[in-house]
């Protein structure tokens, strides 16, 4: 019985496919796999917007929105109607074609990455052999759309915001990819389905998730920080800093295009969280072997909601990082840490199982982290400012 509930969507799809003529089966199979993604994740986006506003409100000792619907949970509907009925203003000197394509490309890239994420047992849209690589490749198309948005608006502020956004995204792509390399090394495959399958085994009641190893834990933390930076969330929301550059690269967008940017950003956040869950937190696997009767997709979404809550929590806690602090953090701390993490994972792989490898790998990682942070703090020497053009 638990197996039936677990596989209910797969069985439903098989049953539906029986009613389709053989010639159309590949097409229908593809459509039936894609429709749940298109339905579930925008719904999750709507729920997340209201959860975030209420969560931030409670953190700041106030109610969130509580007028529309019970406890304000129909607020996304009001937001949707508002963004649909707003006038679509395009600056007169803007590049209309590129201006139109930028949010389209963002949403396309954001939706496309969900193809390789396993939502449950046997529930993945496309089981690619190079799934993780596909994820990062398509995810890097977001930067192109940011450039298109910033450039086509023909406004100094949007151009400035676009440059900062792209610089930030490119800087944090390196630690993102490198911290996922440890998992690829340990699993020996680039396929997301295989990676989750390897984590779905248990010793006793404890799972084999990669986050429960020293290199996995470090990788998880680095991946989450880089994911926060990739989707321009606080504390890395310098490109869209609401109090400074107002909306950065999407300042000239109004109405539904703005909503599409919002959607693309949140979908990117969900996608990187889902990838973190797949790589480090065991995907759809239950945390304890006694809990495997709960369906796999329930675990996946529970973990996703937990990570979203952590994102909202961090947003309510931390102030915004300055541009130079951001870049220094990426290149001087996170990149060396991810490289050392890879070394640690390699050592882990070649040492026999036991206490020794835990100790050594943990020592390497912790020591390098402490030394790096100490040296970075010390290098803040204050010297007299020299002006290049003023005498």
């Amino acid at each position, binding site marked *: 019985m638990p197996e039936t509930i677990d596989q209910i969507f797969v069985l439903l799809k098989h049953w539906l496919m029986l009613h389709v003529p053989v010639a159309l089966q590949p097409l229908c199979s593809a459509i039936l796999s894609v429709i749940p993604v298109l339905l579930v994740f925008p719904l999750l986006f709507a729920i997340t917007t209201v959860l975030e506003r209420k969560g931030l409100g409670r953190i700041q000792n*106030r109610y969130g929105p*509580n007028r529309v619907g019970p406890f304000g949970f129909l607020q996304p509907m009001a937001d949707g109607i508002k963004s649909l009925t707003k006038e679509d203003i395009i600056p007169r000197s803007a590049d209309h074609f590129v201006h139109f394509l930028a949010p389209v490309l963002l949403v396309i890239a954001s939706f496309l990455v969900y193809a390789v994420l396993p939502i449950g047992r046997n529930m993945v849209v496309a089981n690619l052999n190079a799934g993780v690589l596909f994820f990062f490749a398509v995810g890097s198309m977001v930067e192109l759309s940011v450039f298109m948005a910033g450039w086509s608006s023909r406004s100094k502020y949007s151009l400035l915001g676009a440059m900062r956004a792209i610089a930030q995204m490119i800087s944090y792509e390196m630690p993102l990819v490198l911290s996922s390399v440890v998992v690829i090394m340990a699993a020996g495959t680039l396929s997301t389905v295989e990676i989750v399958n390897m984590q779905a085994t248990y010793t006793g009641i404890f799972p084999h998730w990669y986050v429960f190893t020293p290199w996995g834990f470090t990788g998880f933390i680095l991946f989450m920080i880089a994911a926060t930076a990739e989707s321009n969330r606080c504390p890395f929301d310098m490109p869209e800093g609401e109090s400074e550059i107002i909306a950065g690269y999407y300042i000239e967008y109004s109405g539904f295009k703005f909503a599409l940017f919002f959607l693309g950003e949140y979908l990117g956040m969900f996608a990187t969280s889902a990838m973190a869950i797949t790589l480090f937190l065991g995907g759809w696997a239950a945390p304890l072997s006694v809990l495997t009767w709960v369906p796999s997709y329930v675990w996946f979404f529970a973990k996703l909601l937990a990570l979203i809550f952590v994102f909202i929590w*961090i947003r309510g806690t931390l102030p915004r990082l300055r541009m130079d602090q951001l870049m220094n953090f990426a290149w001087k701390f996170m990149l060396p840490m991810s490289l050392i993490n890879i070394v640690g994972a390699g050592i882990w792989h070649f040492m026999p199982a036991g206490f020794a490898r835990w100790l050594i790998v943990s020592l390497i990682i912790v020591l390098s982290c402490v030394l790096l942070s100490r040296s970075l703090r010390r290098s803040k020497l204050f010297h007299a400012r020299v002006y290049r053009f003023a005498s």
Partner: protein
Amino acid sequence: MLGEGILKGMAETARNFFGSYVDKDRLTTVQYPEERLPQIEATRDFPFLVYDGTDWEQGMRCVSCQICEKECPPKCIYIAKSADKKPDATGKPQFYPARFDIDISVCMSCQICVEVCPFDAIKMDVDFELSTDNRFGGLLLDKKQLSKSNEYYNKIHPTEAAAVDAALADERAKAEAKARQAAEAKAAAAAPVAASVAGETK
């Protein structure tokens, strides 16, 4: 320890989050329009015209002297004096305003009209929920909309209204006393004349 500040901050926000559900003192939000904060007595929003008694046209204190219209800084008051006179609360025939319009979209609540009115006819109201969707006259209040009773004035500004009522009653008493004295003097002046006339005819 590295990251200690961040962890302490996160603990603080978590405490805020869970505390806001448990501890009612944390949420200082006033759920308008279901709850409203009480206003202090000296609150002022837009002017209104005071009338004594029950008939707003008869009991209106305003005698259309137009001082408030002249003193109003943004010139939001428009008064048209009447042609005839009607008796006011003390019985004396006075002019009355045929039109008294205040444009409250212009009014800046400076209270100068209240300060200069010699008849305590215009006072400050405390009603602020005056939004309307009529763009072309919804915020232009006419004489009828502006007239509110003295009881209402007592309700919204108790101490002020009590002082005004006392002053008005004082004035009225003085006027009555003067009138009685004049009547007595006239009666006394009329009586010796009548006696002398009566003495002459004898």
